[in-house]
């Protein structure tokens, strides 16, 4: 198997789907001649041409709205929002409209569109280049929200998202783009949406997480194993729909759960996961369910020490593991 980066995996997924299906096209800011701000669509313009690789004006509401219309008309658009921080103008098109198409037309219409956006901090990007937006979209029935952590997952999940018949918000963590490498099969494969993945088996504590944090959690789990604390790491992969079965299974196994996410902790994905656990696995709990998430601060600060304070890392996770193990 080839070892590639998350960015390369995303590029491969889109290229394969574009070659397989003429209905797939990409639109977004700087995605054509520039090849995308992160070069996710590098070389696409020359291969697929201007009709399928469409550079748009700096108007996210239009990008989302046009994509929605195209999807409802039978195409399969991949709309790239250059940074998730700029996704807010799309809320009306996505939350207000796309999510409700199938429901509102009694299934007569649907919107098979993917809205891709790089998100997350830890890259010294401050207020407008570090936001995490999954919770906002995950709140809305009718949308699917995917948050891959590895090249393997990113490719398999993006292909499934493009083939999905309803709108999918595909959120790629910028810090994983070049920092996370992994094996990806040479053969074609897809990963079903809504299925979590146990990234590491363990006995004492379950960590439930997604995105970049998967890697910090794996590192912390490794450190914990030196202290004879056995940590299981469950990667949600898709934060809507949540894989309730996998969540409950790991909690029943260990009785102690830590939910780790970079996004603001309050009312985040971990809050829903925590509620599901107390509802479905109450009798298996041996400790309070702990969330380790971003602080009650409106945005990623610009100052490096403050950004470090905002970001969750392996050491913070290790401290939480230790406290939970001792409980």
């Amino acid at each position, binding site marked *: 198997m080839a070892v590639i980066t998350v960015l390369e995996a995303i590029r491969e997924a889109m290229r394969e789907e574009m070659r397989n299906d003429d209905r797939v096209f990409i639109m977004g800011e700087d995605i054509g001649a520039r090849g995308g701000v*992160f070069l996710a669509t590098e070389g696409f313009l020359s291969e697929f041409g201007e009709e399928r690789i469409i550079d748009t004006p700096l108007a996210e509401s239009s990008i989302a709205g046009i994509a929605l219309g195209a999807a409802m008309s039978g195409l399969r658009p991949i709309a790239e929002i250059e940074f998730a921080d700029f996704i807010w103008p799309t809320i009306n098109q996505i939350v207000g409209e796309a999510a409700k198409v199938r429901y509102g037309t009694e299934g007569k219409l649907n919107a098979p569109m993917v809205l891709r956006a790089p998100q997350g901090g830890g890259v010294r990007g*401050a207020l407008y280049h570090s936001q995490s937006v999954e919770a906002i979209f995950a709140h809305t029935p009718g949308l699917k929200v995917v948050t891959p952590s590895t090249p393997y997952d990113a490719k398999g999940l993006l292909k499934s998202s493009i083939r999905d018949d309803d709108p999918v918000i595909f959120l790629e963590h910028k810090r994983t783009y*070049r920092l996370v490498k*992994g094996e990806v099969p040479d053969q074609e494969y897809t990963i079903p949406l809504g299925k979590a993945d146990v990234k590491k088996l363990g006995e004492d504590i379950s960590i439930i997480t997604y995105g970049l944090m998967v890697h910090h959690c794996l590192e912390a789990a490794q450190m914990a194993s030196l202290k004879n604390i056995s940590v299981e790491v469950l990667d949600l992969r898709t934060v809507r729909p949540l894989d309730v079965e996998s969540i409950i299974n790991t909690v029943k196994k260990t009785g102690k759960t830590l939910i780790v996410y970079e996004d603001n902790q309050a009312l985040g994905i971990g809050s829903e996961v925590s509620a599901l656990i107390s509802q479905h696995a109450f009798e298996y709990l*041996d400790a309070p369910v702990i969330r380790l998430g971003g602080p009650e601060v409106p945005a990623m600060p610009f100052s490096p020490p403050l950004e470090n304070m905002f970001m969750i890392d392996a050491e*913070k996770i290790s401290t939480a593991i230790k406290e939970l193990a001792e409980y």
Partner: protein
Amino acid sequence: MKIELPQVGESVTEGIIGRWLKNVGDKIEKYDPLVEVITDKINMELPSPVRGVLREIIANEGETVQMGGFIADIETNENQENTNQDKLEPDVTDQEIGTTGVLLKNTAPVGPTGSSGPISRDEPLSTHDESPPKKSRYSPAVLRLAEENQIDLAQIVGTGINERITRKDVISFIEANSTIGGKASTGPSDQDTQSRKDQEKIALTPVRKMIAANMSKSAALIPQAWSEVAVDVTGMVSKRQDIKESFMNKEGINITYLPFVIKAVAESLKKNPLLNATWSEEGIILKKNINIGIAVAAPDGLVVPVIHNADFFSIAGLAEIMEALISKAKNGKLTLPEVQGGTFTLNNTGALGSVSSRPLVNHPQAAIMTTEAIIKRPVIKEDAIAIRSMMNICLSFDHRIMDGAEAGTFSMSVKQLLENIGSDTLIY
């Protein structure tokens, strides 16, 4: 290539790692003895399944490993090639990548607006200075486990914060009481022992640990009752005396009392199948074969070789089989089939001069019998005092499976068969 502890025999689920016969870095041929493994049935040398170089010992001496668990890593030629290929990719770390991937540490992530550039790594700040939660109530998991296993939580010492009883504490307690009973009871702690000069601690060998676990299991799980019967073995003693020399000449081995006893026990087990059984909550399982284990004191500790289908053999045949098994036991050469499948155990405690003993049933069997020292005693025989060779037989049995009546019938059967031995007893 990761080497697993293979499944060795029925009802064995784990083994204790004994001495490693190879060191890290040693070249290993396929089938080279790799490590000693001790199970509750046997000690064995595990042969290497592959040829290569021992890269890592994962399970150290004394560690308990589940069957199928990894014990070592052997670098085979195939692996070496793969490793070399991986090395060609310079910025991938040495650790295995797999589809889970790896987070690179020595590479700059994307820059804030899409370009790539290094960023400084600053000291992270700890955000955790909260005081630990106070002890209060049992967690739902603890309550559920306690209820399911009918455990009084007051018996358990908590290891959680402020001595909270954790789920793991309850699980350990359950395991200790079901498999290694008494582990939870209080004894002198390590610290006490270490600080005292008037006593000495002997390290537990793997065999000792295994015996301890098995004995605790027997004592903890089986409600055992005990009885003793005196047997007049004068006839057996003289029969053996009569044939001793000729047997030695003919067969080349010494004939002992043991084959006579095994024969009598095998016959009696046939007539009393409850003694050749196993308890289960779903019902008593009668064993069709009569496989008698004989307790043998080997240099490392107790071993119990098994005579399979003991009822098929003559006294002479049993003598030959026993001779071979005991010799193998003393040299540590028993194979797995020779120690497993026992359905009843016989122990000749008389060899140590004992006249009465109370053995522990070899779990999951139904009963164990000892033969005690043969001693000449004055006894009343036909209203006269006679000097007879007397031997006690002692029987411990699982009272769940049978009552005293069945156990007594068995003992009386053994007694009668032994007392009937005389000059006309056939040994072939």
